[in-house]
């Protein structure tokens, strides 16, 4: 288990609160010990406040043969939360294993921190995507930053050096004021953490849709590389081995993250959960990475587990349960940021940048020396113990200053959580929604209308240039980035000697999945697969992040079940296994769930990255230009499309048909064409259709194209330009290779349509229809993000032709206006009011006064610890910055990593300059 909390326990109606964790200790008098629990069986315990249902609480009593202590109760509430136990999703996720195609590459799969895939005799890669949605809404900068930190530690725990990150992001309407609060903070948080870790950011997505207004999706993917023999395990094996806590000291941040924050749908009091958001320190994580890698290489680690969501509780129980051993832990040895922390708080803290090591006693000194070299804390906090009874697993016994506060079978926490087969029911509105097809909407017909539509589409928030975001990420560090955004897939060189590398893409489409979650999941898989194959790579493995509403809503559960079935079937058909991932439930505001949003990552292998195929048209070799072909079949498929959304605010009908066998044929063709160097550029066709792809490929290197659209001149050009039929790609073939390429395509059964040529003239010329200069396209394509979010104005005299973009009416787009659309209505309305209240009350004080009881409860607990106080303080600043609207490039005020005064043992005081910088006015 790792990063943080995103899903939450089925909290139902219970009012969850982080203070309940502290309160449990207090309720029980001084310190609630096992001895006392046995003596006072009838003492009332706040299990509902901690998200546990009555029957779950009864089961805990049954397992222990007594009431749980305060600490035990907290641990069960955490480990049995939706986030940790997968209690609602487990029965469905089994399909990924059952339907998994045979695969000899997989060295570790589902259930591990991340899946591990062998890519050569001696090298393997590990990759996974996770969600950090709720923390990123509550506190965008820290939420997103610690999302990166968490997934990176998962990768590290497998024995790998993390080598890149990617971030699929989904926000509310682009012009909604709250999006101006959330997006800049999230982007700066991802950049602030990833850049400081020295990990290139090589891809991702940025999607706007009112469905995410009150619940943005911040998913984070990381990939790492390891020598096959360095693969690490989490088992706490070896009786007598020492349990070592490595990394940052434990503080009060993130307490209850998995159960309280991820815990439930957001209501109007989201701000008061800021203390449940963790605070990241990327410098500490960088030191942690380097020290762990040094420990692995020296063979000093018998087992390792990262601490993320659920903190020590999760790491202790999972390592012990995996090995079947017992564990004895002395909690007072845990280095603390705040001496006043109770045992329950120590166990529940989600402080970042920590790892749990299992170390042979003979090697302890060497481990401590490595930690000292890198300036990180390393503390022996316990030891692996034998089972008392033969054949039975051992027990986890935790004491605090001579009081035994926990005595449990670790497996009961880690493995034997509740499992629910929740009711499922197809959403009542689905039939009507599917009947409302976009194919019947009025279409542009005249050349002038088509021209205008192209310009309007490329300037729309979902299709426009995202450099505003991606240039805040380092894509060069480590020197192995071969392709990065805006390319279809990120491509990394893994082995400098042989050129062996990987391609990675991550995709999702919530609108498609809303219309048909089964097909929508397959379409997400198909798109990620296609994005990988256009680079010439061979797809080998899948990771997924399943973002859904509340599992307690049968309609949401139906969407989830359908999406999982679709993804499992799709993977089976494509012959590539799901190696790991994450489920994020409770993504909804009030009663309105987000669109079901399965996000799928596909990993491919390139034997020689020098042969990768980029997306941009290369400069034409001569006056004649290279040849353009569309591969695949284009039909009249516009339901769920970007065109229907941008021009009509429409969502209805059935998504494009997906034919995975055809995708596979396309993939094989592209791999061979790349290998034989028949294609010099290739670009996947998806959102926005051919129009989008022509514009992106032309602008990438400023090369024009002359295109003849096939078919009937009256209607066909529109379909050709904007249909989102799956299984297609645009390729550029040098003239000398045309015959060979066509023959190869025929051999693979992939339809080829000649489209035209690339040109030296910097114009996109759709013959018989319209022509648009690349300067005009560029102006439309690149202006949107800066207009929305302000920030990096050009400081020098950058050339850029300035054509008027005002003709493209941005405000007419539904992604801008946040108008309720079809079935998304309720969600949007609720989201808007939610966001509006956040907007109106940017400071935490104001929120406190409007949230009476709950907030003051938090405030009083926060005042006890400078740490939590710091978190809510910075969050308040961030909110205020957002309140100034899109004008300021609101560089996240909350960029303070490690708020508390925490002089770590190295020569490294907590960074503070950034915070002071951030408090300056941010208007450009």
């Amino acid at each position, binding site marked *: 288990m790792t990063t943080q909390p995103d899903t939450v326990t089925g909290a139902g109606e219970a009012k969850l609160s982080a203070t309940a964790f502290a309160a449990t200790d207090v309720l029980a008098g001084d310190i609630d010990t096992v001895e006392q629990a046995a003596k006072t069986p009838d003492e009332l315990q706040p299990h509902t406040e901690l998200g546990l249902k009555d029957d779950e609480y009864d089961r805990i009593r049954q397992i222990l043969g007594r009431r749980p202590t305060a600490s035990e109760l907290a641990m069960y509430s955490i480990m049995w939360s939706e986030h940790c136990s997968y209690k609602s999703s487990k029965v469905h996720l089994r399909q990924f294993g059952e339907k998994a195609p045979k695969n000899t590459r997989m060295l570790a799969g589902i259930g591990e921190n991340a899946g591990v895939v062998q890519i050569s005799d001696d090298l393997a890669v590990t990759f996974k995507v996770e969600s950090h949605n709720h923390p990123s809404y509550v506190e965008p900068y820290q939420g997103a930053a610690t999302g990166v930190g968490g997934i990176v530690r998962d990768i590290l725990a497998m024995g790998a050096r993390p080598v890149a990150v990617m971030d699929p992001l989904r926000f509310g309407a682009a012009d909604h004021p709250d999006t101006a609060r959330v997006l800049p903070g999230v982007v700066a948080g991802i950049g602030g953490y990833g850049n400081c870790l020295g990990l290139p950011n090589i891809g991702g997505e940025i999607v706007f849709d009112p469905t995410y207004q009150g619940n943005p999706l911040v998913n984070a993917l990381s990939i790492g590389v390891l020598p096959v023999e360095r693969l690490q395990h989490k088992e706490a094996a070896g009786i007598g081995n020492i349990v070592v806590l490595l990394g940052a000291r434990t503080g009060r941040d993130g307490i209850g993250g998995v159960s309280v924050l991820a815990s439930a749908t957001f209501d109007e009091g989201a701000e008061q959960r800021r203390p449940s958001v963790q605070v990241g320190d990327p410098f500490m994580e960088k030191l942690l990475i380097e020290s762990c890698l040094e420990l692995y290489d020296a063979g000093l680690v018998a087992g390792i587990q990262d601490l993320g969501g659920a903190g020590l509780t999760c790491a202790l129980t999972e390592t012990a349960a995996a090995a079947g051993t017992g564990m004895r832990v002395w909690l007072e040895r845990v280095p603390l940021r705040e001496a006043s922390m109770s045992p329950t708080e120590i166990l529940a803290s989600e402080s970042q940048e920590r790892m749990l090591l299992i170390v042979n006693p003979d090697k302890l000194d060497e481990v401590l020396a490595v930690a000292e070299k*890198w300036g990180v804390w390393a503390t022996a906090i316990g030891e692996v113990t034998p089972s008392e009874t033969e054949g039975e697993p051992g027990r986890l016994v935790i004491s605090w200053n001579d009081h035994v506060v926990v005595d449990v079978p670790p497996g009961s926490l880690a493995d034997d959580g509740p499992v629910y087969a929740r009711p499922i029911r197809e959403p009542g509105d689905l039939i009507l929604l599917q009947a409302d097809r976009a194919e019947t909407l009025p279409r542009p017909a005249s050349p002038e209308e088509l021209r205008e539509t192209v310009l309007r589409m490329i300037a729309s928030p979902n299709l426009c240039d995202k450099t505003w975001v991606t240039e*805040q990420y*380092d894509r*060069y560090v480590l020197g192995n980035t071969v392709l990065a955004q805006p390319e279809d897939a990120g491509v990394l060189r893994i082995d400098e000697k042989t050129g062996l590398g990987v391609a990675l893409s991550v995709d999702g489409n919530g609108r498609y999945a809303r219309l048909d979650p089964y097909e929508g999941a397959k379409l997400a898989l198909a798109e990620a697969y296609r994005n990988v194959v256009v680079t010439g790579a061979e797809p080998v493995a899948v990771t997924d992040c399943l973002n859904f509403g509340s599992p307690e809503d049968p309609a949401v559960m139906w969407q989830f079940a359908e999406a999982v079935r679709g993804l499992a079937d799709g993977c089976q058909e494509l012959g590539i296994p799901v190696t790991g991932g994450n489920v994020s439930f409770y993504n909804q505001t009030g009663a309105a769930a987000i669109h079901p949003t399965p996000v799928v990552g596909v990993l491919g292998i390139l034997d020689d990255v020098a042969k990768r195929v980029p997306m941009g048209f290369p400069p034409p070799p001569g006056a004649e230009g290279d040849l353009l072909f569309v591969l695949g079949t284009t039909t009249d498929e516009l339901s769920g499309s970007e065109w229907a959304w941008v021009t009509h605010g429409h969502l209805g009908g059935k998504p494009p048909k997906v034919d995975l066998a055809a995708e596979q044929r396309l993939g094989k063709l592209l791999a061979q064409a790349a290998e034989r160097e028949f294609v010099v550029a290739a670009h996947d066709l998806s959102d926005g259709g051919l129009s989008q792809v022509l514009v992106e490929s032309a602008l990438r290197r400023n090369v024009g194209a002359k295109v003849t659209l096939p078919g009937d001149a009256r209607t066909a050009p529109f379909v050709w330009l904007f249909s989102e039929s799956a299984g297609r790609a645009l390729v550029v073939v040098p003239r000398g290779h045309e015959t060979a390429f066509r023959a190869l395509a025929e051999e693979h059964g992939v339809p080829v349509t000649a489209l035209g040529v690339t040109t030296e003239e910097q114009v996109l010329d759709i013959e018989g229809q319209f022509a648009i200069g690349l300067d005009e396209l560029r102006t439309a394509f690149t202006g949107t993000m800066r207009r929305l979010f302000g920030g990096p104005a050009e*400081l020098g005299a950058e050339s850029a032709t300035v054509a008027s973009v005002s003709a493209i009416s941005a405000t007419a787009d539904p992604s801008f206006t946040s108008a309720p659309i079809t079935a998304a209505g309720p969600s949007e309305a609720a989201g808007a009011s939610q966001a509006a209240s956040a907007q109106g009350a940017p400071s935490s004080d104001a929120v406190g006064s409007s949230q009476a009881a709950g907030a003051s409860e938090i405030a009083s607990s926060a005042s006890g610890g400078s740490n939590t106080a710091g978190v809510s303080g910075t969050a308040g600043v961030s909110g205020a910055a957002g309140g100034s609207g899109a004008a300021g490039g609101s560089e996240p005020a909350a960029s303070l990593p490690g708020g508390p005064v925490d002089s770590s043992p*190295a020569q*490294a005081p907590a*960074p503070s300059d950034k915070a002071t910088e951030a408090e300056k006015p941010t208007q450009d």
Partner: protein
Amino acid sequence: MRIGVVTFPGSLDDGDAARAVRIAGGEAVRLWHGDADLHGVDAVVLPGGFSYGDALRCGAIARFAPVMETIVDAARGGLPVLGICNGFQVLCEAHLLPGALTRNQHLHFRNRDQHLRIGTTETAWTSNFTEGEEILIPVKNGEGCFVADTKTLDALEAEGRIVAWYTRGNPNGSQRDIAAITNEAGNVVGIMPHPEHAVEALTGPSLDGLGFFTSALRHLAGAAGGQLTGGATR
């Protein structure tokens, strides 16, 4: 020729700098911040990153690292030193170069391929370029805005110590578009953009960054042959 690359806690582009040295034909020697011994290297690169987490100010702590005390002395004696990004910040904090690098004017981290115009070839690190030559290398920083008082800026210009200017756009608001400067002797150069990320066609926007490393090797070869002593000729 042996070129040392220093690793501080939080250095990130150290591996890339070492790779660039190797591709240029030199031998890269990794130096550790806590070790004052330079192990006989002929030149030193201070790489990009966030040394000591950028605590206090970028480069402010690194300046006091044991290895820096040796480097400062050696640099005063003519040892060629190239500070890239965070390395530039360290050189300013160590007073080997004038001025300071502050938060980008627009307050965002920015990563892009950046055009530079070479201002002087009379340094240990730029002799393989031509004056006025335009090159393209990546820039990526959050605190790369070069500032100094007017007198210092005037002096840098008058003495030909501006090694490179940003051109076709200034990515961070640096005064007078300054991207790189050198000391009076020409052996110490600080540059905000990243030449080490433009040394391979596969991974960089150009091969223009290689010139900095081949210049140093040429300079060292010249020094070894007795043609040059103590930094570049001016």
